[in-house]
């Protein structure tokens, strides 16, 4: 199952080897050419010698993670976040470390020993550590090296009514949409790019767009969704189950009005639900792509993900399927010349 395979693979920013290998297997045979660039982006070319606009579809394959920075004498490991991780979500979570996926748990003082004041305050990063059951520092460093990375040890599972939970829907959901798009045939040149290092500053996408020089680029993302109890309408970002979301403005992009109208038009014409991403914070690879060289037209299509950047993220499978349909429809309309910049 594609979503399970992609979300369970490891790939914190800068350490995308495993997920890149998985993605390469998933697309091999469906595309004309697949290769990596200097930064480690996985670039897939499909029908690039056909006439028509050169379309770059982008999904970042990296995920937020933790990097081991120090081993204490007693064998406990200190770490720093790789990408935006809220320290408050970390306590007591199981993680997998390094290439051999060694189990660890992020430890903290048990409730029995905490003073009343300590119970009221969230634990800061400095007081957290990862316990791998090591005897002492030497034992710990025999299994884990400084600079190794860890990810949450969450399995993919379908839950409730057409929902799923996993550790990295941001942005393996986008990767899965891109894989599905690359398995189909399109009459225009398509460059599918699984980028690296999005979570630490959109670094991979910048180099990929510079190389590809697309006419049109679309970032496929898993985005913030906070449609929960007591969140006002203008603080939700997106709503689970209401379809793929279009960005109006985020931290790095002002929507290209023409392309936004095109996306809305395609969704309505194909009877696919859509919504707007109604917050300014955050960003995605399109923020880097649209500023490369002489500038690139395009936008982003995002799947709402609750508890993004946390151990168990929740996504609607209907939103996912509608995003797959929408990307298919967008490519078909682009091939028909439905968008003129």
């Amino acid at each position, binding site marked *: 199952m594609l979503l399970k395979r992609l979300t369970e693979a490891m790939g914190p920013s800068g350490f995308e080897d495993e997920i890149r290998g998985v993605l390469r297997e998933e697309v091999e045979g469906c595309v004309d050419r697949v290769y990596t660039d200097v930064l480690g982006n996985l670039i897939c070319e499909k029908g690039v010698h056909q006439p028509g606009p050169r379309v770059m579809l982008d999904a970042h394959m990296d995920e937020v993670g933790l990097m081991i920075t120090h081993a204490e004498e007693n064998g406990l490991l200190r770490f720093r976040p790789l990408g935006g991780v809220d320290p408050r979500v970390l306590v007591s979570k199981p993680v997998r470390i390094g290439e051999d996926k060694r189990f660890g748990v992020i430890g903290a003082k048990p409730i029995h020993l905490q003073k009343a004041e300590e119970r009221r305050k969230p634990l800061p990063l400095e007081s957290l550590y990862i316990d791998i059951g090591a005897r002492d520092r030497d034992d710990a460093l025999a299994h884990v090296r400084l600079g190794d990375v860890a990810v949450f040890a969450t399995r993919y599972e379908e839950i409730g009514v057409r929902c799923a939970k996993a550790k990295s829907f941001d942005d393996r959901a986008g990767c899965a949409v891109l894989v599905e798009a690359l398995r189909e045939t399109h009459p225009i040149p398509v460059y599918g790019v699984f980028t690296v290092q999005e979570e630490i500053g959109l670094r991979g996408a910048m180099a990929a767009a510079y190389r590809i020089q697309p006419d049109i680029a679309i970032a496929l993302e898993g985005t913030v969704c906070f449609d929960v109890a007591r969140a006002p309408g203008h603080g939700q970002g997106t709503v689970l189950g209401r379809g793929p979301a279009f960005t109006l403005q985020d931290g790095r992009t002002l929507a290209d*009005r023409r392309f936004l109208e095109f996306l809305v038009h395609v969704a309505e014409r194909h009877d696919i639900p859509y919504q707007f991403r*109604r917050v300014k914070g955050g960003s995605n690879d399109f923020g880097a792509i649209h500023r*490369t060289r002489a500038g690139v037209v395009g936008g982003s299509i995002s799947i709402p993900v609750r508890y993004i950047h946390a151990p168990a993220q929740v996504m609607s499978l209907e939103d996912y399927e509608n995003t797959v349909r929408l990307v298919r429809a967008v490519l078909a309309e682009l091939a028909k010349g439905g968008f003129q910049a």
Partner: protein
Amino acid sequence: MTDIGGLKARILHWAEVVAPSGSEGQVREALLGAIRAAADTVRVDALGNAIATKAGEGKHVVLVAHADEPGVMAIHADEQGFLRLIAIGDVPAEALVGRMVQFTNGVTGVVGVESRVKPQDVGFEHLFVDVGAASQAEAQRLVPLGTAGVVQSPVVEMGPHRLAGRALDNRAGCAVAAEAFLRLAAMGRKVSVVFTAQQAVGSRGAGTAAYQLEPDLAIVVDAAPAGDMPEAPRMALRLGQGPALKVMDGTAVVPLDVKHHLEESARRAGVEIQYEVWPRGQSDAGAVQLSQAGVKVGGVSYPARRSGMMQVIDLRDLDAAVRWVVAAAASW
């Protein structure tokens, strides 16, 4: 050649146009209208920059003036028909309370604030806009989500030389760049002018524009804050004392050869200048300088007194800036 009246007419016209970053379409048309007849090529690029080029003699000098302004964007409509906003660029939420906003589609509304919030704590999440809608559907029909707007305020003439208004930064700079472009084109020089998009959100347009144009020299024309008001933040620029040579701002340090050339050009043109040292200042200079393999960049600024969303400028500074830019560009 002095033409304060011509500059003023253009600025009065252009500063009324609503053009928050990313929604520069209307002002772009007005700006290009002033120079189209003198240009060989005119185009609008992927990010919304308006670019005009005139072929001719000499080095390729590119005049850069941002066309956009900070503003707001409608991001949500609630069930009662009130709109919610996010900022475009650096807009203090408290400056919007009780003001009218005008959206790019002409709809206007009144900005209110949730009453439980203390004035010093006001954020965009507490603001709402009443556009006269009675329902969510009506509000979204009047102002589709994603529509951008600005604080509504007319441009006012204050005495013979000064103007006050909302978007004088940088429609005044656009007027300087446009006039300088026309004069350089008439002289037969190779020259381009770029009215850049999306400066107020981080100079996103300027870099891609410079990438396309490969300038031998780029001159950025923009406002710099005057410091001649009571208890103003320390800044040496004074209104009406002449345009300013950008020495450095928060985005770029002007190369010495460009700085010296601008000083010498001002002397030859008989223009009294001031010096702009603005360590936290934002301008297109840095984005232009770091485009391609690096671009020679200079800056000619005009002092602007700033108060909330309003600016006050002096037309004599602008007129001198035109003569200075023309002299510098023609001799590079």
